[in-house]
């Protein structure tokens, strides 16, 4: 736990700072809930060498802007997930908790495909610290990356940026 007091010394991008950047040759970690990761990850995956998506909380995604009431939007999003992600364990980690997640489905057609690119990994372990060279997550592993992108939610986490 001593290492957590020292800072991450690679490139740290917060909020929207990742926009318009090229990540050619870099390994990148994205820390964001599903609704934010869905915007960030497809762009980053295009140029980065390797991407690890630390997505602790999933959100529903609709592939098209369908004018559906909520009662139909969630089943439609569930169907879309079922059709576009074959692996059941990945699907489980992309399924929001019906009791506590009250976000409306977002429109995004690229996130699931980006996650399934061979150089992209979905990780759902909680991230508890940024350390020199990378970050640490609760499964006990230190993930070394060249660049860390904190989504808007993660950019406000005091425990990560202390």
């Amino acid at each position, binding site marked *: *736990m*001593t*290492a957590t007091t020292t800072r991450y010394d690679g490139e740290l991008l917060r909020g929207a700072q990742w926009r318009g950047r090229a990540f050619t040759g870099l*390994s990148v970690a994205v820390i964001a809930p599903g609704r934010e990761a869905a915007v960030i990850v497809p762009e980053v995956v295009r140029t980065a060498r390797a991407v690890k998506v630390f997505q*602790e909380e999933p959100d529903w995604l609709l592939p098209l802007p369908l004018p559906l009431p909520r009662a139909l939007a969630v089943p439609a999003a569930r169907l879309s997930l079922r059709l576009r992600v074959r*692996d*059941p*364990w*990945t699907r*489980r980690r992309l399924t929001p*908790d019906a009791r*506590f997640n009250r976000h409306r489905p977002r429109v995004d057609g690229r996130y699931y495909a980006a996650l399934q690119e061979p150089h992209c990994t979905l990780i759902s*372990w*909680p991230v*508890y*610290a940024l350390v020199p060279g*990378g970050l*640490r*997550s*609760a*499964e*006990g*592993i*230190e*993930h*070394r*990356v060249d660049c860390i992108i904190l989504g808007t939610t993660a950019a406000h986490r005091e*425990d990560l940026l202390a």
Partner: protein
Amino acid sequence: MTTATEATYDFDAMLQTIKDKQWSLADIDWDAPGAELVTDEVRAKMKPFMADLVWIEHVGARGFASLAKKAPTPTIKRIYEYFHAEEQKHANAELALMKRWGMLDEDGNPPEPNINVKLAIKVLDDFGDTLPLTGLATLIPLLECALDGALVKFLLDEVHDPVCHEVFRHINSDEARHITVDFQVLELIGAGPLHKLLIESLALLSPQVVIGLIVVFTPLINKMRDNIVAMGLPEQKLYNAVKRFATIGSRGAHTSRIPAYHVLKAQAAMIIDRSSPYHRLLADPMVKLTSFVPAKVLGRPQAWVDELTHEPVAS
């Protein structure tokens, strides 16, 4: 011993403690001296034991993943998500110990799980997320008491490698929090409305749960028990560990309202009584029967079984 523990227990404070107490495999010097204290004799004896231990932690991790889907509040859900990761961390750390002691093959692959573990994986994949909260929330502390109280103590008595002791100081401190939360959640469930307890308990009587208990859980525990007794673990230690489940459970004011708790307590009492007909008529025959199950019929397990790693740093 108060009657209002469920109202006073502060899960938010516990979540904060859990976050503060995180540790990493990268904190440990896996090449520190001491590995030579594990002699060839101990290595041969311990290899199957460690393999079982890694897989039981890994399966326990999957159990917490299912619990997170059932957690009564967002805070408890978050705690279970951390516990899921921590059990995975324990499995990873134990795998790293196996690597240190030369128990892995050249590629560092995790050991193959035995058929009873494979059955448990299959059942968790298929039914884990649909089990009612009371069932899983009662089963997991029983497993943890047994694991924590007997297996780990046995390991520390047998192995004198200081790195192993350092790792298990971390693991034991995590497990103590797991057991505390497990029983506090039982208190919370037990204090709930009676009709809800009864409905959930009736749901537990569904065939897949009962068959799961008989075909998967019963032989899993008995095989483990036989393996470690054959290795020289005093049976008394295992008994003490299982007794702890009943002792801690009886401290709570509301836990005894949960029918599943009584069923598992009764089963635990039979497990530790070697003269009970439970072994002769049910558990031992089930160990034998399941040993004939070809692993192929179980199909491919879900991808979580591939998430084990002994590498403290991933790039």
